[in-house]
């Protein structure tokens, strides 16, 4: 075998190893930069601020991670359809944006430990006296909902007596709630106080309903990128224990996380 052919064969072997093109921890450290996908259509997780800069809970967490790593942070705006392909092909090193860990998504990406929980519950005007899910299962109650959401089948099953008024989108639902055109809404509660900020005259009450489902969101990364994942787990554990994640959550979401992430050093 000639030297050329050996070198060529070797080059093929080297090229064949990292299939997805995901950057390992060493490569990120050498490059001095980490690329993080955030979704600006999910405020206050990520949003454009008054100066039209990307800002929010996730950029702040990503900033703390980059600082611990000692590299520059580059935020890459991603949308719901492209965020998983971006991370699987190594265009970004990890993705944020309410990446609930599910067995379906875990077929294509790996996850770190959870960063935060995702919760459902009831938002209502404070002082109405209804405290439990059963209090809302009455024909005197009108729920204001967005059509086509996962909340609807749950309401049909669990709150069959309540009347339901449907809207096409969340801004319309929020306005209807603030105008008192119904009693309450059952939906995702994590960002609801942020969404209802335009109606400061109303005092809101949030009642978590854990029986619906609590999911956990971690950072999503390319399958098999264990060097980065192992480091991120250690970093996230530090950010949980120091209280930084909870502090940044409350700053942006205006309420404590409805379900605390059960942090343990045993991972």
């Amino acid at each position, binding site marked *: 075998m000639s030297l050329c052919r*050996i070198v060529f*064969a070797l080059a093929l*072997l080297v090229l064949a190893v990292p299939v997805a093109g995901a950057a390992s921890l060493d490569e990120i450290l050498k490059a001095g930069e980490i690329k993080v996908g955030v979704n600006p259509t999910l405020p206050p997780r990520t949003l454009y601020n008054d100066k039209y800069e990307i800002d929010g809970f996730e950029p702040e967490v990503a900033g703390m991670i980059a600082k611990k790593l000692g590299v520059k942070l580059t935020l890459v705006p991603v949308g719901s359809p492209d965020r998983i392909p971006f991370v699987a092909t190594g265009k970004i090193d990890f993705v944020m944006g309410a990446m609930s860990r*599910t*067995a379906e998504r875990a077929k294509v990406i790996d996850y770190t430990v*959870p960063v935060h929980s995702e919760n459902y519950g009831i938002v209502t005007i404070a002082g109405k006296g209804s405290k439990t899910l059963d209090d809302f299962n009455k024909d005197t109650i009108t729920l204001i909902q967005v059509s086509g959401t996962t909340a609807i089948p749950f309401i049909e099953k669990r709150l069959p007596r309540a009347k339901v008024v449907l809207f096409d989108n969340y801004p319309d639902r929020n306005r209807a709630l603030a105008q008192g055109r119904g009693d309450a809404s059952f939906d995702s509660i994590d960002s609801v106080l942020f969404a209802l900020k335009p109606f400061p005259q109303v005092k809101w009450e949030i009642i978590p309903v854990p029986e619906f489902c609590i999911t956990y969101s971690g950072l999503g990364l390319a399958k098999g990128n264990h060097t980065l994942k192992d480091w991120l787990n250690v970093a996230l554990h530090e950010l949980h224990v120091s209280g930084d994640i909870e502090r940044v959550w409350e700053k942006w979401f205006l309420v404590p996380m409805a379900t605390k992430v059960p942090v343990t050093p045993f991972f």
Partner: protein
Amino acid sequence: MNGMKRIGAGLTVAAAMILGATPMTAARPLDDVLSSKKIMVGVNPTLPPLGLFNDKNQIDGFDVDIARELAKMLGVELEVVQVGSPDRIPFVASGKIDFVMGAMTRTPERAKVIDFTVPVHTEIFGVLTTEGKPYKTAADLNDDKVTLVQVRGTTPVQWIERNAPKAKVLLLDNYPDVIRALAQGRGDAMIDVVDFVGNLMNQHKQATWKVLDVPVDVYYCSLGVAKNSATLKEWLNVAIFELHRSGFIDRTWQKWFGVKMFYETKWTPYF
């Protein structure tokens, strides 16, 4: 020229090393499992009710129910492969099966050759007795007024010789006889892996059974996967978490063992 040859030889060695570093075993990554539309799972049918042969002579049991649910979540067909104690680890290490079940307790020795998922269930080595007996822990059994009823030739008998030498021991031939003897008050307690006698306990409803809260030992049983099959392991961890959270694992345990799992798996989303 000589120098060129040496470089050539060095490169060949380097190429061989790279080849060597890629998994030598045929363990299948998750993508291969998905594209083949089939997952091969090792079940040991001599560990009822984890694995057993049912009336139709098919392999069945707790392990098969769990494997079937995991295959359903993956969207692939389940192929149950019969394994025994000596061959199950070689089978998974060489990629003949994708993962192995059958009370696969995580031990440092086994972890040298295979990897483990998060725990699916526990088993306890503990004390089965009846209400009204004063024992709080296994140490209370080391007393000449205590009669332990045990299966002849099993490892707990040796444990008793070492740790409860003062106790009297009544040796019987099998578990149904031991449980009957305890129900009839012919002895005070049994020390063994108590999970497996749940169905026998249910056959003697007149006895008010009690398993001491403090187990002698707890075993955490996982799925065993090949070293280097990390993409499959990561997926299995997420799926096992969902099966814990939905209550599927506890329900399936109750169905096959006739009792609740005695010791919680203590599953957590933090992994």
